[in-house]
């Protein structure tokens, strides 16, 4: 693995100069992405969602956990745009705070699972042999178990072990990455296997390039588009899984708000029928985020990775 610790030789002064950036494959891809209306709509919604959730609470006169018994279960009004909940807390503020947590969990678990999955998948595909066998068998084992029941079991174990509620958020991130990496590793491995056999990799051998240069200059840059697509599609799934777990009380626990546990809090007939402001806003946020992320990811896939088109 010493090849990797050395860093990127790509930073060497390049022979070709970079001023003609407009012509790179990246620039072409960006231009095509900008023309894809659906993907751009998705991207804008995701960006808005992030902006509102992270900046919005700063402008809110309410805090997420201040309890006002006098203001219990008020429907939307001028002071509380989305009403208040059973403890008199402002729903809008809580939805935004919950968004911070849900999006952070989604993003962080995506980063972790893409990192794990691509590292392990790339090692398996590039070095083959025993490393490949071990990594892929472990991955297969995890893939044979449907991920949702597995998450339920692990979540239940967490409750059993009395993990403090404020740490659960981090543990949920780890859990999601743990069930997500094998699928990513498998895709990355397949791509690395096919890249390895591409003629330009053979050309690199003929030129006598070092293993390190072949890996970092020729193989990995061609892997990046796939990783971007995987990453973007993965966020949606992670947000959804976190919501499901939290909805069932196995993920992030109140008082830390997430979209999932906010819906769970409204999980009774009266709230459901008569106080839709309690569950429609977080539900809409989950729905909008997942759809928007996936639209954006699909657009990226069309632009970056035409082979994968369905």
């Amino acid at each position: 693995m010493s090849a990797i610790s050395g860093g990127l030789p790509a930073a060497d002064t390049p022979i070709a100069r970079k001023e003609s950036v407009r012509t790179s494959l990246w620039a072409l891809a960006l231009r095509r992405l900008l023309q894809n209306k659906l993907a751009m709509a998705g991207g804008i919604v995701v960006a808005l969602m992030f902006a509102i959730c992270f900046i919005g609470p700063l402008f809110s006169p309410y805090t997420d956990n201040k309890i006002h018994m006098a203001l219990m279960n008020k429907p939307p009004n001028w002071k509380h745009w989305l009403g208040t909940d059973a403890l008199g807390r402002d729903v809008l503020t809580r939805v935004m705070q919950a968004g911070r947590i849900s999006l952070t969990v989604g993003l962080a678990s995506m980063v972790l699972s893409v990192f794990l999955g691509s590292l392990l998948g790339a090692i398996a595909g590039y070095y083959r042999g025993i490393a490949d066998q071990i990594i892929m068998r472990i991955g297969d084992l995890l893939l044979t178990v449907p991920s949702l029941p597995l998450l339920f079991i692990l979540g239940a174990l967490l409750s059993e072990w009395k993990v403090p509620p404020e740490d659960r958020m981090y543990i949920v991130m780890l859990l999601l990455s743990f069930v997500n990496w094998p699928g990513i590793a498998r895709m990355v491995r397949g791509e690395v296997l096919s890249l390895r056999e591409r003629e330009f990799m053979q050309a690199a051998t003929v030129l006598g390039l070092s293993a390190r240069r072949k890996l970092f200059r020729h193989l990995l840059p061609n892997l990046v588009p796939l990783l971007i697509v995987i990453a973007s599609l993965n966020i949606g799934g992670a947000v959804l899984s976190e919501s499901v777990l939290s909805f069932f009380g196995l993920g992030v626990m109140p008082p830390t708000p997430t979209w999932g546990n906010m819906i769970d809090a409204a999980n009774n007939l009266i709230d459901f029928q008569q106080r839709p402001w309690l569950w429609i806003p977080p539900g809409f946020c989950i729905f909008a985020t997942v759809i928007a992320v996936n639209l954006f990811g699909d657009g990226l896939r069309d632009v970056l990775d035409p082979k994968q088109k369905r």
Partner: protein
Amino acid sequence: MSEPLLDIRRLKKYFPIKSGLLNRTVGQVKAVDDISITIRPGETFGLVGESGSGKSTVGRTAIRLTDKTEGEVAFKGVDLYALPPQELRKLRPKLQLIFQDPYSSLNPRVRVGDAIGEALLEHGLASKDEVRDRVLDVLSLCGLSSYHIDRFPHEFSGGQRQRIGIARALVLNPELIVADEPVSALDVSIQAQIINLFRRLQETNGLTYLFISHDLSVVEHLCSRVGVMYLGSMAETASRDDLFREPLHPYTKALLSAVPIPIPKLKRERIVLKGDIPNPANPPSGCKFHTRCPFAVARCAEERPEFRHVGGERYVACHLV
């Protein structure tokens, strides 16, 4: 006769055929089956044969791009397959390969200048200050413009890309270039330009080529000696003039008779081969060509003909010669 630059002796390359759930090896494709070629410095050896006859595999095993099954390849007396990996890597610049497909042999994410120059830096053949000039020189040698240096491969036509591939090999000052059907993906007018480029480079740089092609007219134009392959074996090698004037092997005769001749008076009898190329996983017994040979006798099906010296520079594998 000078010492050979590349000496391929009794080279074999078998690919396993795998099948079934357990991925068991159920047979072998004898892509290269006991082939010997000697290439002297400065000459152009043409390798011809139908698709699937194993030409590319010869080219790749000749520079140890894939592993061999048996046999030896010596480059200037050095056994390539005995070299440790680091030594081999240092020798690589001397042995270059030009690929058949100009599209897949260039990394789409590497600028032309970097693609051509990176190996120079890697092998310490040029300093960082020199390398751009070296790349510019070779670009103009190959008929490309200096502003092409900062561009990406997708901005070029097939012919231009093939020039980039040639430039990438040339910049290393190789002694041997294996050109694997370098023009077959290009249209005819571009083909002529590239072939002339090869010719010119040979005159100016004293290059040695192993030139693989299925186009006999290209080979006749460019090569000084020619080898004819059939199903992994060499049917005949001869100097270009001998081969085109008087082919000895029936397969060579058949190939040549299919080439249109510009002078109608010199009409050759047309030999039409019967049947299709046999499955390389299950080649015919004896002489591999006997199933399609118009002159085959009983012996051809039983005994594999030796690849014999028949005078001058001619070698032939046929019982009837």
